[in-house]
Every structure is written in structure tokens, then in C-alpha cells.
């Protein structure tokens, strides 16, 4: 028996939040693989307890600076269920457009600042910008358009302030929308070019077997509404989530892994597109068709292409939703506060985000449960590494193995700061 080789990535870079990977290889096999999350616990579910319902939307936004709108929309959905509120169609349209703006911001940030440097051999976007100035500027421009719509509708792009139970605190004026929509139309060819470009990146060719989980809506691509479905036939509403998905403690580790029927599963852009390819508007489907990449895809690295598809989709949807949008008479519908239990489930940029709140009769939070996408993908990331690293070649030099492992993890765009309840992950296999 030879001495084991230890490979450590002490701090994962170009991910949101803090994590690390420890890998131990003995006799040509992975002996130990640890995706450690050392994002400090912030205990959001506990600090919500005893706060009034009216604080919830502002509080949960702070779970993640990259996707605060996802948290706000999901909480609004849950609270509206409790209070028996149905928002007006024009409000639902505005929310959907705002949520797509966040997808544009988050996906463009991931593609250009976090992921693309991997595939082109740079360690940061600023280094990449010297050789690929046009691609980087195009990405930053698209990201900026997402941020500007967020700021128009929410006051600011990070932790916007306008989403409230029943609607919005302020509605945009027609002239404000028109000015930005003009720029969105002009950006369509850029978003198309981005999708074509991601399909030309040298992505590792690696198929894996994994269940995909996403929302599905009867008419449109899912973001703010739909049932939870899987590639293996699951079809449930948000309230049934705990019956099928378990955050269980693994016997050999201290980690909470979220499993679907005791198996790791994938959420996020690739899972969404795999399950909702037929919900793409025809112009988006046509551009995707021309790339030659087909979905459903079993290659996790096609996640970057799926993100680009969703950026193009988001531009089309924002234009469709806001082009003829007319403000409703009231920016929010009135309601009466009451106690009860409500659920929310929406498609955050990184995958399904599930909330459950229990309120007392005065509207104070008695209990909150929040399951973010990255905690759901955590078990899948490990499973991916266990399959991908031996195929890449465990005999390769440490530096190459380390870089590849980082690339595998980064591909999931893990947003570790979203980890409302991550633990240090310790996988210790039998010797």
C-alpha cells in the first residue's frame, strides 16, 4: 500500500461564498473527498422567529446578495398563501419580469466573471478581458441591463426594496420602461451571440446519470410558478416538498445532504432546461437549435450553455411582458393579516428555492424553513466529482487535478452564502 496523495484547494475561488475541497487518493482510487463549506452560519431561520410578517421580505433578501429577488419572491408567495392574497395579473407580470432581470444579472456574472475564465485558461475576468475584450464587455453589458431593470423596479439591484405582500410599493412609469426596453431590444443580438459563443467553448465531454428537478408550468418557462417535477416522474406541489425531499444527516459525516427519494439530484439551469425545453419561445429554441447542442443533456458542463439560453429567454420574456404592460389601478391589493402556514417555491438562478413559514394570529413568525438551491446541489456536486475525477485521470499532476475539480464545482455556480444551513462537509470512506 502506498502513501496517499493529498490534494487540497484551501479556498475555492470564483464561487459566491466560502468553501474548500479536500481530496485523498490511495492506490489510484479516491479515498476521501471533502467538499467543505466554511461559510459561517448566520441562522436566518432562527432570527426570523418572533419577527413580524412585514419584516420577512427584507430579511430573507439578505440570505444572498446575488439572488435577493428569488428570496423575496418566494417569501411573498408563501405569505400571500397565508393571507389568501391573489395578486393582479399585471403585478404577476411585473414580478416575473423583475425575476428574469435577476437571472440575467446572476447568469451573466457567473458565465463571464466566474466560469468562462476556466474554459479559456485565465484566473480572472480582468485577465480574460485583455485577450477577449469584446466578449467580456458584451457580458458586462448584459449583466448591467439586468441590474438596471432591477434598479428601476426595485430601487436598487442588490436588496431591492419594492416587493411587498400584495404587489409592489411603487410601479414603474411607462416612459421609464420604454427607455430601458429599447436597450433590451438592441441587446437581443448580443444575447444570441453569447449563446452561440458558449457553445463554442471547449467544454469537457462527460456524461453522467442524475435526476433533474425543476418547476414546470403549463404554458411558460418556469420561474415564479409551477409544480415541482423531476426527470423520473415526480410531479408535486410546493407543500408536498418535505414528503419527497429529505435533508438527512449522512452516517459517516456531519453534513446535511438534501436527497430526493434517497438520491442526490440536480437543480439549476441545466435541470430546468432539460425538463422545460418545450417551453422555450420559438425564437430562443431556434438559436439554441443552431448551436448543435441538444437538451436534455447528460453533460453537467452544458450548464454554462443552459445559462446562456436562459439569458436569451429572459430578454425575450422581459420584452414580451413589459412591451404592452399597463399599470393596474392599485400597486398592491389590500389584505387582512391572519395566522397559518404558507409555502413558496420558485426558480432561483441556481435552482428551486423552497420556503415554509408558520405565522401566529398576530402575524408573527413562529417557524421558518428555507431550502436554498446550493444545499440541494451539494450532494450532486460530490457525486459528480467522484465520477468525473477518475475519468479525468487521478494520475494527473496535482495542479491539473485541482484545477479540474474546481472547474467541476464552479460549474454548479454554488452560492455558498445562500447556505442557510450548511455544515462542514466531511466524507470519510472506509479504508
Amino acid at each position, binding site marked *: 500500500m502506498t502513501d496517499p496523495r493529498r490534494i487540497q484547494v484551501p479556498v475555492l475561488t470564483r464561487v459566491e461564498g466560502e468553501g474548500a475541497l479536500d481530496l485523498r487518493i490511495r492506490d489510484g482510487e479516491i479515498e476521501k473527498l471533502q467538499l467543505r463549506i466554511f461559510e459561517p452560519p448566520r441562522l436566518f431561520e432562527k432570527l426570523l422567529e418572533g419577527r413580524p410578517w412585514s419584516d420577512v421580505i427584507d430579511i430573507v433578501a439578505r440570505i444572498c446578495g*446575488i439572488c435577493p429577488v428569488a428570496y423575496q419572491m418566494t417569501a411573498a408567495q408563501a405569505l400571500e398563501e397565508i393571507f389568501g392574497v391573489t395578486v393582479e395579473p399585471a403585478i404577476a407580470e411585473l414580478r416575473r419580469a423583475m425575476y428574469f432581470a435577476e437571472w440575467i444579472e446572476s447568469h451573466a456574472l457567473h458565465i463571464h466573471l466566474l466560469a468562462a475564465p476556466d474554459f479559456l485558461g485565465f484566473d480572472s475576468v480582468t485577465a480574460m478581458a485583455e485577450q477577449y475584450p469584446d466578449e*467580456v464587455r458584451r457580458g458586462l453589458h448584459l449583466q448591467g441591463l439586468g441590474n438596471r431593470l432591477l434598479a428601476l423596479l426595485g430601487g436598487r439591484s442588490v436588496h431591492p426594496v419594492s416587493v411587498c405582500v400584495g404587489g409592489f410599493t411603487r410601479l414603474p412609469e411607462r416612459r421609464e420602461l420604454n427607455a430601458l426596453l429599447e436597450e433590451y431590444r438592441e441587446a437581443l443580438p448580443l444575447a444570441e451571440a453569447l449563446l452561440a459563443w458558449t457553445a463554442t467553448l471547449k467544454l469537457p465531454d462527460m456524461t453522467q446519470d442524475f435526476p433533474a428537478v425543476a418547476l414546470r408550468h403549463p404554458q411558460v418557462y418556469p420561474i415564479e410558478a409551477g409544480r415541482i417535477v423531476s426527470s423520473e416522474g415526480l410531479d408535486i406541489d410546493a407543500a408536498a416538498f418535505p414528503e419527497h425531499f429529505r435533508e438527512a444527516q449522512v452516517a459517516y459525516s456531519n453534513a446535511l445532504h438534501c436527497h430526493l427519494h434517497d438520491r442526490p439530484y440536480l437543480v439549476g439551469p441545466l435541470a430546468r432546461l432539460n425538463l422545460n425545453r418545450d417551453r422555450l419561445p420559438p425564437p430562443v429554441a431556434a438559436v439554441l437549435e443552431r448551436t448543435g447542442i441538444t437538451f436534455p443533456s447528460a453533460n453537467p458542463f452544458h450548464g454554462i450553455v443552459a445559462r446562456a439560453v436562459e439569458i436569451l429567454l429572459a430578454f425575450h420574456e422581459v420584452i414580451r411582458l413589459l412591451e404592452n404592460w399597463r399599470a393596474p389601478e392599485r400597486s398592491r391589493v389590500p389584505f387582512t393579516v391572519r395566522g397559518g402556514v404558507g409555502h413558496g417555491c420558485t426558480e432561483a438562478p441556481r435552482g428551486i428555492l423552497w420556503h415554509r413559514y408558520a405565522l401566529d394570529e398576530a402575524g408573527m413568525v413562529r417557524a421558518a424553513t428555507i431550502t436554498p438551491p446550493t444545499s440541494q446541489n451539494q450532494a450532486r456536486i460530490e457525486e459528480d466529482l467522484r465520477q468525473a475525477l477518475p475519468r479525468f485521470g487521478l494520475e494527473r499532476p496535482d495542479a491539473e487535478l485541482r484545477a479540474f475539480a474546481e472547474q467541476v464545482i464552479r460549474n454548479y455556480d454554488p452560492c455558498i452564502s445562500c447556505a442557510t444551513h450548511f455544515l462542514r462537509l466531511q466524507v470519510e470512506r472506509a479504508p
Partner: protein
Amino acid sequence: MSAKPRIAVHKFASCDGCQLAFLNAGEDLLTLAELVEIVHFPEAGPLDPAAKVDLAFVEGSVSTPEEAERIRAIRRHSRVLATLGACATAGGLQALRNFANAGEWLAGVYATPETVAALDTATPIREHVKVDFELWGCPVNGEQVLQAVRDVLFGVSPAIPDEKVCLDCKRRGNPCVLVTRGEPCMGPVTRTGCGALCPAMNRGCYACFGPAENPNTAAFANRLEGLGLLPDEVARRYHFITSQAPAFRAAGKKEAKDETP
């Protein structure tokens, strides 16, 4: 030609939203990369936590033993150290555990809390090391951050506004939320920097930029009670995102009749 100034961006307990002041800056991010050398910024790529730098930005509050150690090392390597946003400057939402039994909270979320290394408190950077200047806000105002970088490059101290949100509201011509709608608004005791964002969006300020200079928190608590708020409700408004700013911590404790220091 002299070497470019060296900059680091460090992360502690936070949502990563304040780092977006750089990552969402678009063209300005590329300009920044020309003006300075970004030597440590894990979310953007560069990793060298021990590098000596001219300017270190710190996002997040100190909430684990490791973080308490790390901030001291960062201070030793940084000529100028600045906080980036509400967590680093005033605790952030996670600091609400400072008023609760943190052990019970941890046990409520984790099955084996003893394996989670967390301090009982989440505290601002200022309580651990000397801070040269503080940028407030949840999140920070991106323009304010880039302006601060410019100021430091020019060798001057950044001028950080500390007047009340009310003054920006008047400049923008917003109708007063407190007076015209009779709704609670923290603007009269809160530092501006957001441009009176919430009143412009038809809602009350929730104090994410922390206390303004010389806030009359006691008189304002009376004013809020005059709107019908109970003392506990007033306390929660002081003990929110910037609860560890001394003026708000004390004001909230007074309302909640909490006698602990």
C-alpha cells in the same frame, strides 16, 4: 513608473452582496483593474490572503473563532483597512443572535451544533481591529465604494456622508412618509448614502445605512410610539440590520427594557 497600489477584498459572515459593488460595476471594474492591482478577491479569482496591500476592504461581520484570528492578520498586512457595508460596520442581520441565546439558535438549525464553529455573537470589524474608514449600507452604494478607492489613491480620506436620510428626501422632493402617510420611517435617525431610496419607492426607511450623526433616538422612539407602535416594535426597528451600531444598540435595548450591557 511606480508599482500600482495593491487592493484586497476579504469576506467574513455576509451575503456577498457588498462585493457586488465591484462585480456589478461593469466597465468600471475593468478601469479599476487598470488603476490598481487586485491581489486578493476570492470571488473574482485572485487569492493571496496574506499579501501586503495598500487598501483592504472587509465585507461581513466576525462570527467564528477563525474569523476573529483572520481579521487581526489582515490588519497587520493592510496599510488602510475599510469596512464594506452593514455587516462589517454594524453586525448585519446575523448579529441579532447577540440579543438571543445563540447556542439555542444553533441547536435549532443544526442536528449536531457542537461540530459547527460559531461564536455566540456576530460583531463589527471595529470591535476587533482599528478601522480606517467605514462604508455603510445593506448593501453599500457602489458609487460610494469606487469614490472611496479614488480618494485613497489620491491620498485623501474619503468623505462619507453622515447626515440624515431626511435631507436627501427633501432634495429629491419625496413626500414625507412619516408626516403624509403616518407610517413609520427611520429616515430621521438614519444616515443617508442610499439617496433616500425607500421613501422614493413609497415606503419607510428601514435604517440599512445605520445611525446618522447625532441621532436623537429617544425622541424619535416617542414619535414612533405616537404612531401607535409598542415599545417592542420600536426596539425591533433599532435592532435590525445595523443593530451593533452603538446608538441603535442602546436605543433598542432601552425600548426593550433590556438591562444587559
